[in-house]
């Protein structure tokens, strides 16, 4: 697997460079948002920023059709899928770390204006990360079962249907409440572990589904 990680880094390094202006802009906006607003909640932009990082780390195959070449290398399909999951997970952690770092930076820059990250704020950041993880684990099988651009279309349709279903009041109503639900659950340790355990199980299910689908793909 190690050569695959090195290859992923060497190839996405330039892509990250290209995406960096956009990421830097969102980060700047988060800092501005933190400094000018008295509010304690994590700026909504962090949500998008994390999502953007995940797109970059997994979507190397989208912009340039390299999947055929990758499959012709002496690696198994399972290794290719595991690398993508690892990269996405790293993207997620990086997003979380960035969000907290920015909150700290804003506090350091203008101590008077931005409060230090409170435990409640940390819990929100982790909850946000878990919502992202849930979205990610739901999304990746689509990108592995179909080729990237068609996979995104399929996922966006599914996401919109899920959002519509929840908006119409069936069970959870909307991603917003998923976030609030996670926030509440994370408050006490026992349910928090249950939630994280559940998410990990969902992740493993997603990984095996992707591996099964990717093995059947033709390039």
């Amino acid at each position, binding site marked *: 697997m190690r050569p695959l990680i090195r290859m992923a880094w060497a190839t996405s390094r330039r892509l990250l*460079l*290209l995406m*960096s*202006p*956009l990421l*830097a*802009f969102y980060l*700047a*906006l988060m*800092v*501005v948002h933190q*400094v000018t607003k008295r*509010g304690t*909640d994590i700026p*909504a*932009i962090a*949500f*998008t920023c994390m*999502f*953007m990082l995940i797109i970059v780390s997994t979507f190397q195959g989208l*912009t*340039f059709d390299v999947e055929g070449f990758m499959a012709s290398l002496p690696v198994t399909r399972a290794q290719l899928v595991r690398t993508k999951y690892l990269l996405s997970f790293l993207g997620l952690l990086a997003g979380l770390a960035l969000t907290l770092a920015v909150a700290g930076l804003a506090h350091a*820059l*203008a101590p008077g204006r931005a409060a230090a990250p409170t435990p409640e704020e940390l819990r929100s950041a982790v909850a946000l990360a878990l919502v992202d993880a849930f979205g990610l684990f739901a999304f990746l099988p689509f990108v592995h079962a179909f080729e990237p*651009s068609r996979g*995104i*279309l399929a996922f*966006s349709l599914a*996401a*919109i249907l899920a*959002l519509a279903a929840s*908006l119409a009041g069936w069970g959870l109503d*909307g*991603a*917003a409440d998923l*976030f609030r639900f996670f926030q509440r659950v994370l408050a006490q340790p026992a349910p928090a572990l249950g939630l994280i355990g559940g998410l990990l199980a969902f992740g493993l299910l997603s990984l095996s589904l992707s591996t099964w689908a990717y093995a059947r793909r033709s390039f």
Partner: protein
Amino acid sequence: MLLELLRRDLRLHWGSLVVPILILGMGLGAVVMADEGTRLTGLILETSFLIPMLPVIIHQRESAKGTLGDLLVLPVSRAAVVRLRYAEVLFFTGGLLLLAHAAVWVELSVAARHPIPMSVMSRDQFLGVGVLLIFWFAYPMPLFLGWGMKGLVVGYGSLITLVVTLAMTETDLHRFIDASMARPVAMALVLAGLFTLSYLLSLKFFSRRDF
């Protein structure tokens, strides 16, 4: 000619518009989580960043997939392609601002369980969108059309460093903003002038480029 080119873009690129709109949807979700007061402003902020980039995304996809040559080999002039990109940004921004309004209005009505009066964009928000359109589209576009991806990175990169430095140094823009808001007509003329200047520069740079 513009109509055929616009129809060509919509028929070939509707797929690539889904990803930005998906991100807009995610942003919409984020804004809904924000508290009551800032919903419309938050949404305009979000829309005005993403939507002016749609023509850039289309043009970038056209050059990344190598089909820009097919476009330029048609009996269309380079000027027609530049006109297309500038017309598209107005088409997309206008169209999607209306969509954003409708989305917020539906959300509020659903949340309030009864239809509420539509809150119309105030003059400040209109000018705000105009300023963002200039900075986020008109400024980088000539660089992008003239030098491709390198131009795009320079364009947006310089823009971001400007914003970060403004934030870091906590310069107070309010005085400048209030002054310009006071004279909306002059402000609108300045914005229109900058938009046209950007068009002329794009024309010059794009016409001499090799493909």
